[in-house]
Every structure is written in C-alpha cells, then in structure tokens.
C-alpha cells in the first residue's frame, strides 16, 4: 500500500519537458506533513501536471488559507510566488491577485475546514464572480492542523477518532460549486493520480473558475473505520463517471474509440478533453443533470468522481469587468493619471 509511505518525487535522470525544465524545477520545499498524508500526493499530482503542461513555473501564483492543506503550496513550485493568507479567506485574496495581473495562472489550494467551514461564503462568492483559477480542496473531513475535529464536510453520523459522532449535515463542495456557477467541476481522490493529473491539467487550461474537490485522507486523524474519508472507505465507494485524457491543442489526435464510449470536448484555448465514459449516459456538459446525478448517488452512499461538469466556453471576471488586456499592475501614471488639465475642467464641474 504505497500510500502509507511518504510519497517521494522520482527524478528520472535529466528528463526535460518541452521548455527544458525537469520535474525538479516544479518541486518546492520539503513537506512537513505526516508521512502518508493524502495532501502530499496531491502536491505530487500538481507538480506532474505543471511539468507535463510545460508551464513556466514562475508564471503560477499559489494561494492558500491556513491548515495542513494550505501549507502545501510551499511544497511545490518553488519558483512561484506563494501566499499563505488567513484561514478561510484565500478566495478573496486570489480574486484581488487575479485582478491585478490577469496573465498568471492562479492556483488556490485549500482544505475542507478552510473552504467549507470558515470559508464557505468566500468560496461560493469567488466562484460566482467567475474568477479564472484552479481551486482545489484537499478534503479530509477534519481539521488536520488543529488535531482532528470534524469539519463541515464530515458526513452526518461519521465517527471521529476520539469516538464522537458528527451531527451536522455535510456540505458537499462539489454541489456548492455547481450551484455557484463554477464552469469546471471535478472530484477526485488523492490516491488516484491517474484520474487526478489529467483533471488538473484540464482545469488549468480552463478559462474560468475550475474547482476540484480531492478527497485526501488524513492519516493522523481520519483514516479509521467509521470515517467516510478514509482510504479504505473512499476506495470502496468511489464511483467514477468518466476518466479523462487531456490533449493540448497542438497535439494531433490519432486514436479512435468505439462510438459512444468517448466524447471530445474542446476548451476555449483549443485543448481537448477526451472523456471515457464510465457511467452510462453521464453528460458532463449538462449542469442540471450533473447535479441530479450527484445528489442521487450521494444519497445512495456513493462518492461520484471524475470530470463532473464543464462549460467549454466560460467567461471570466475580466471579461465581465471588461478590463484591459495589459495586466493592471503594469499600468503607470501615463495610463492611469488623467493629469492637471483634465483636473481643471473637473474643478469647473464643482462650482
């Protein structure tokens, strides 16, 4: 069971991506999380996705709140700027950062406590504004960093390590994101890199609010029988609706699939998401149907994963606000200051 050992980043020699970066160029500081923590696997998946996508590491800005999960931006993309802000309020900080410079890739990393408990309001509002970002929750159903209290995503009736029972109805972040108007919504599992890496890649290519809820077991406080966020539980109840390949725009498409088993969706930037349907009739471009599917299967105790919803032609906040193409942080007095002459005529209006 590989997930019990601390994930190690393998360095296959000097293998480089198209930009000439090795995987190491996408790594960060050494993780201080518990050995086996699901969050470290997500960091590894993010590193891999960025490496494979040929992203210039410094063109990513990593933002987070507070928690074990929110520490992880430090453990990846060491050449990117990071901002470990305050608990539950990363979405607003990310919004501001994005407004200041529309040309970077924004990676918001959060926990279930950070986004569903204290941060629920900010999470929903950030999504509804259409901020172009990849927002990932590393969802373990507990507050890891404060030692294992239930978070708002813990299922009603699930048991804590200390023996307590959760009474409160759970918050389904995927449902919330869908209701709030996210245009890319996925769910995955920290233990399933094969599913997770292409999801992340597709999310990065998405030009709008992309949300991925990643179930990420806490080995220290929420990996026991009775937990619905343990490795075992997730493995047993995982119901993937699809598996995806992410194909960058320029790649040629060669393989053929039996009709009805795969669906290609082209995103705004020309990239293609190839969906291998695992669940009959699931159409991830139908938001209402997606929500219904989720609710029905959640009621049945299943954990639905995969690319759950995608609007291939989203608009982002800069589109709504009609901001100029140049990042706002590059504008100087020349562009911004109307000058003395204009001021004189403004004075006249107030006489």
């Amino acid at each position, binding site marked *: 069971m590989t997930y019990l050992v601390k994930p190690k980043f393998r360095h296959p020699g000097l293998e480089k991506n198209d930009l000439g970066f090795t995987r190491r160029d996408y790594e960060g500081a050494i993780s201080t999380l518990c050995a086996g923590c699901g969050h470290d696997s997500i960091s590894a998946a993010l590193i891999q996705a960025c490496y494979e996508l040929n992203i210039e590491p410094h063109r990513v800005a990593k933002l987070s709140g507070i928690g074990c999960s929110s520490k992880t931006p430090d453990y990846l993309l060491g050449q990117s*700027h990071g901002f470990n802000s305050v608990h539950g309020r990363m979405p607003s900080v990310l919004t*501001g950062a994005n407004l200041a*410079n529309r040309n970077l890739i924004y990676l918001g990393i959060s926990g279930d406590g950070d986004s569903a408990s204290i941060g629920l309001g900010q999470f929903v509002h950030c999504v509804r504004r259409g901020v172009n970002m990849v927002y990932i929750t590393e969802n373990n159903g507990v507050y890891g960093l404060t030692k294992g209290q239930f978070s708002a995503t813990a299922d009603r009736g699930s048991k804590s390590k200390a023996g307590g029972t959760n009474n409160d109805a759970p918050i389904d972040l995927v449902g919330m994101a869908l209701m709030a108007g996210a245009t890319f919504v996925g769910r995955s599992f920290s233990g399933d890199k094969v599913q997770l890496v292409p999801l992340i890649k597709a999310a990065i290519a998405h030009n709008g609010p992309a949300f991925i809820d990643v179930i990420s077991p806490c080995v220290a406080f929420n990996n026991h029988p009775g937990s619905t966020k343990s490795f075992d539980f997730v493995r047993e109840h995982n119901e993937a609706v699809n598996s995806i390949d992410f194909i960058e725009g320029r790649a040629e498409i060669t393989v053929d699939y039996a009709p009805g088993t795969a669906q290609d969706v082209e995103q705004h930037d020309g990239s293609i998401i190839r969906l291998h349907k695992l669940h009959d009739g699931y159409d991830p471009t139908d938001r209402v149907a997606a929500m219904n599917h989720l609710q029905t299967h959640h009621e049945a105790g299943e954990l639905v994963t995969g690319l759950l919803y995608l609007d291939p032609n989203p608009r982002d906040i800069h589109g709504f606000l009609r901001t100029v193409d140049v990042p706002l942080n590059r504008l100087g007095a020349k562009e911004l200051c109307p000058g003395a002459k204009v001021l004189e005529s403004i004075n006249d209006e107030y006489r």
Partner: protein
Amino acid sequence: MPKPIEATNDFVVKFANVNGSGSASANEMFARSILRMGVPIATRNIFPSNIQGLPTWYEVRVSGEGWIGRRGGCDLMVPMNPQTWDKDVASIDQGGYLFHDSSKPLPPSKFRADVNVIGVPLTEMANSRYDNPRDRQLLKNVICIGALGALLEMEHGELEKLVGEQYAGKDRLIKPNLEALGLGRDYVREHLRNMCGLRIVRSDKVGNRIFIDGNDAAALGAVYGGATVAAWYPITPSTSMAEAFGAHCKKLRIDPETKKNRFAIVQSEDELSAIGTVIGAGWNGARAFTATSGPGISLMQEFLGLAYFAEVPAVIFDIQRGGPSTGMPTRTQQSDLKICAYASHGDTKHVLLLPEDPGEAFEFAAQSFDLAERLQTPVFVLLDLDIGMNDWLTKPFTWDDKRAYDRGKVMTAEELEAGKEFGRYLDVDGDGIPFRTLPGTHPNKGAYFTRGTSRNRYAKYSEEGHDYVDNMQRLLRKFDTAKKMVPKPVVRQAMQPARYGAIYFGSTSAAMDEAMAKLEAQGIHIDTMRLRAFPFADEVIEFVNAHEQVFMIEQNRDAQMRMLLVNEGAIDPARFISILHYDGTPITARFITAEIEARLKAFGKPTRTRVVS
C-alpha cells in the same frame, strides 16, 4: 416679541423635509445660488437610517466671513415636514423666522410669539398651477426656493442660471422650473416685502474654490493616485465614495483604443472579502483600496494584521460614523482612531492620514497609494460622515504633471538577473523597509512565500525567537521611517506668545478656525496644531511639550487621539485638557469656544503668570 434678527451674509437656513420626498435638488439649488453670488456657505444634510418617510434636514450656513464649520442654531426655518413641525419651530433662534407653507391654516399654538412667521401658500399655488401630482410635488419645492430667494433679496438670475444648467439637455423641463421660481419670487415681492431681516449680497469671498463632498473628492484622488483595483461592500457613509470612484473611472479610465477598463471594481460579499481582495491585488502589484466605515473596520481586523505583518500595501478609506456597533449610522464621529491605529491582535501600528476637508481628501487619497507602496503596509485615510457626505467649499484640486508615482522598493527582473541580493525581509537600507518582488517576475530568482507566520529575513518559515524579534523590531524601524513621510502637522502661532496650545484634526478644522478667531478677538491666545497623520512627526511632541496645557479637541467619547499621543509620544496626560464632542452632529465653533472659555475661567485668567510648573 424680541427684535427680528437682522443679518447680511451671516445666518443659518434650515429645511425640514421628509426622506425620499424629492426636496433635495431644490434645496441644493438654493444653496448653490448663494455660492454663485460669491458668498461662502456650508451645507449639511441630517438624514435618518431609512429610505423613505422619516425626517431629514438640510442646513445652509451663509457665512460672508467664510466660516464653513457647522454653526448651530437656526435663523430661518423652512419646516416642510408635519412630523417634526413642533421640534423644528422650537429650534428657531429668538427673533428668527419661520417660513412655511400657509396653504392649510394652523392653530396659533403651532407658532411661537418670539419668532417671525412668514407664510406662503406653496401647495395652493402649485396645485392651482399644475395638474400632475408629481409636478405639483416637485415644483412646489421650486416655488419655495423662488420665494426664499426673493425674501433674502438674492439675485433671481443665479437661480435661473442653475435651472438651465441642471436641466441642460432636458430642455422641456426648463420652462416649468423657471416659471415656478418666478411664481415664488412674485408672491414674495407682492405680499411679503421687507418681512425678513436676513439678506444675501454679492461678494467675492468664494473665489475659485469648488464645492464638493469628501467622498467624491477622495474617489477622484484615488483615480489620480493610480488606484486600479477597488473592492468594497456598501455601508453608509462610505458607499458614495466607492460609487464615485466607479463614476470617475468610467469617464477617466477607459482605454481610448479598446474602450476597455483600466480599472476593476468588485462589489464584495462583505468587508472581510473586500480587504482580502485589496491585499491580494496589493501583493500582486496593483494599487488597490477599499472604502468602509466602523463595522467594516471591525470585520477587517484579522486581514489588517496580515497586511501589517506580511507587509502588503493596502489603502483603506474609513468614512467614520457614530459608533460603537451599528451605532448612529447616519451621524458623524471621529471614533475609529484606536481601532485603525492599532488594528488587529498582537503588536501592530498602522499609518493614518487625517484630511480636514474634501480638498485634503483628494490630496491624501492620491498620496496614500505612494505611502502604502513605499511602506508596504496598510494606510488608512480617515474621513468622517461630515466631510464625506456633505459638500464643502474647498480650494480647487491641483496636480503636478511631473509628479511620478512612488512604487516603492520592488526588485525588478533585471536587478535579480544582475545578481542583486534579494531577501524579502532584509533591511538593506536601514529604514526598515525591505525589497519585495512581484509574482511572475523572474524564472528562477526572487520568488518567495508570503505568510502571516514568523519567518526569517529570507522569508523562510521560522519559529526561532530571534528571527521573530528581529522582524518585529524592523517593523518598528519602518514605522519610524513612516513618521518622516506622512503629511506634517500644521501649526498656527497665536498673535501673542501663548501658554496654551490646542490640537485638533480632521473635520474639526473648520469649526476650530472659527473658534480660534473668536477667542483671539477676545484676547485669548492659543497656539494650534492640526494633526494630519499618525505616526506623529517629532514636532507634534515638541508642540505639546512647548505648552503648559494643551486643549485636545476630538469628536469621540474616549479621547482616542489623546491616547495615541500619550502612548506614542510618552507625554504626560496631565498636559491635555480634552474637549470632546460626540453626539453625532458636527462640532461647532460655539461649542469649542464655550468649552475653552469655561476651562480657562476655571484655571483663572489666561493672561496671568504661570501657575502650573
């Protein structure tokens, strides 16, 4: 019957209206026409926390001498709101005037023997002239203004000109308005000649000054100061600042080629989110601000501590209102000093700018962005409802086109490439201000991780006590540097050497000028200092120490500025005599002079030799 008040260019007119009844525009036209006659005025809206139906008042102080603080009292009352009639009538100064709509007869008990009653049948006139109920309501107000103008012997042509300007483009409306003005004027000329001892005569005391509210001015200052990101949540009395920023941007900040916006305004879901967005934008190199009031400042506390400790530029306009809690949301106070100066848990100190009027609101708004980026810290611009939501006469705005924005210490890709050492929290210049880099600057140099936790000079997480202390001490050095950058206090020496000093700030300024002139005229000499910023420049402390006793005038209950002075300046509190005005109305010269006189009386004559050592 006392003698009717006689006054030229020096009296107070007060309109009592119903909220939402549409009287505002006529009242403002009345006020502005006085200005156009070159006579200084000060106007104040007193309004409830309500949208429609509750009482509002509009006060016009006419002051040929140019005193634009609130005066208090009322020489001419125009009570158009039956709900408050009794109170309004009671508030007229003895010998003053009651100008009312005499269409419906009122019993004598509704009047006062010591007040001159002037009746004009406004409703009757409007109803007999107009059919449409909306016209009747709106034009009644215009008839009223026409009549008042005539009563005060104002130049009718100025009123007419204003009608023309107001309805430029909507020419259809000009005629009926002009007619209504004339109706009012004619009624007075016919029936009420020489009824009123108050008059306005043309003057040249307005000069080139403009008449603008502080929120509008601050918003324009933010445009000139290069703000590109604004995030805000509506709250009285700050809402109009954010909205004015949007309005100015729509005119002044459109890319001429693409027609796209050189600004981004987000109406946030609350104040936590607003300040978070400002911090995110500031971190990423845009000039960003929020506008709010007391409750919003309370909600921003956690984030403000982050910005202080992680050293992120941010500008916060706090348009102060009556606190605590929801308090008096439509009244004025200077009661957010402590929560701004020491915002957030732990040890913090923040920069405050304290404009006295819309003119300085414009200046300081523009300057705040330079300070925030230079000092890499939150900068508060503290207005209050009185400055923010009332029109004030103020010197025209100026801008030096040679003025460059000070973007502070931002290390560039070139500098990094050239091998310049980068330590995010390294005090390279001894001023406590480190260099920062912006995200995306350089492929493999200068990236760092921003956090609210302790860290070393190279931004690496550290729980070592010495790293923490080193950083906290640098922050104190930085605050010391700020002292020299913020606007200097303004000192006014009394005509004779003075034992007493007086310190004041913000919207108290106008009333203070007037009070000091009055006291000086009585032979009471007091040096004054107007604070314009926190931290305090050294001369602030020197000023206090140079005077035996210092009157400290504030618009709050707890003498908050005194606390800051005593604490930061290590001044003996015994030196201060607090004069506190905090009922939510703007402070008046009358109040200040009365308080100072009373204290001086208690001490004995101010001209005696030193009694305190």
